[in-house]
């Protein structure tokens, strides 16, 4: 084995860091993509007994998109620790919008957590997931990133994001009548 092949083998067993932009993405569809990378299932050398999972840095998690009335209808459970004898007990069910307002990283984090199989490896996989609410990532995290996971859905552009030139040169489908007034 040459020196180059030896270094190549180290790199194949090293952990890669991936970036995922959660802007306007469904967190549950995104979790399927992310957990695949966390477990190392995207590698041809994958074996369940080998720990070949990668790191994933998720940005813009505050802009995840839930479908329809899911912000109101989806309910997250936690227990405060108070016993049943306490007033109303310790069990709490809070809607997704409230959880999101408390911590904008938790909806995506929990989506990944629930998508993984609940065995002894889950904690290790989740330790390699780094979720950030916006695009501000510490440099010591971002400098490791050497790849980007493609999003689930294309992110549409707002009208304000188009420049005035682009708006002017957009093909006009019909001529407006003389009497037409634009507001």
């Amino acid at each position, binding site marked *: 084995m040459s020196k180059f092949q030896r270094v190549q083998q180290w790199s194949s067993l090293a952990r890669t860091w991936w970036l995922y932009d959660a802007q306007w993405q469904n967190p549950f569809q995104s979790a399927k993509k992310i957990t695949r990378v966390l477990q190392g299932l995207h590698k041809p050398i994958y074996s369940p007994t080998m720990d070949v999972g990668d790191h994933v840095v998720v940005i813009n998690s505050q802009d995840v998109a839930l479908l329809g009335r899911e912000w109101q209808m989806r309910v997250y459970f936690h227990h405060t620790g108070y016993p049943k004898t306490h007033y109303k007990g310790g069990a709490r069910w809070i809607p997704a919008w409230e959880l999101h307002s408390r911590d904008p990283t938790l909806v995506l984090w929990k989506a990944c957590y629930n998508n993984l199989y609940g065995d002894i490896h889950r904690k290790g996989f989740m330790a390699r997931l780094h979720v950030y609410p916006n695009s501000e990532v510490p440099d010591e995290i971002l400098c490791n*990133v050497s790849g980007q996971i*493609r999003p*689930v859905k294309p992110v549409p552009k707002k009208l304000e994001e188009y420049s005035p030139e682009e708006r002017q040169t957009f093909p006009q489908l019909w001529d407006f009548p003389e009497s037409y007034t634009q507001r």
Partner: protein
Amino acid sequence: MTSRCLFLKHGFIFNNAPLKNGLGRFIPQLQRVTIKFCKESGGSVGIRQFIEKEVVEFAQKNPHVSLYLKPRRHRDPFIVAEYLNGEKHHFPLKNKDFTYVVETVDSLLHHSGKEFQIQEKQHYTDQTSIQGMWHPFTHVDPSVAVSQFPNDQFSTPFGVPMTATEKLKELFEAQKKA
């Protein structure tokens, strides 16, 4: 079924060879061969033929092996091979013909001396992959190495059909050219 299967060692042929043997010089592993046989009985015919025809040549070709002939009256013939790792292998050769004995001695000579183990895998190759080992940058565009993240280049999923807006723009461009 015997209880012996419980104590048999399981392993893979890859682990058989002594570590790094042959990288500098090859160290022969077989150290001593004792051939136990009877001069009279019929069960030792094959091994007696081996001693008449082959044994001198074997000793000359392999000076690193000390060879002992041990005649024992009316007892079964055996070959005992002792190896550098301290293992001692006994092979019963009663009623075996000449060719079988030659094959046995030949296999002993090239054996590493590792204890017999049940093979967990029947396939072995020195060249694990013809197309080369996978690494994180196989089939990856080299421009990734110098690009900054997050990158707009990777911000769209694969296999998205063309939108009506894009189609309209394309038609408009074609119309302008015509």
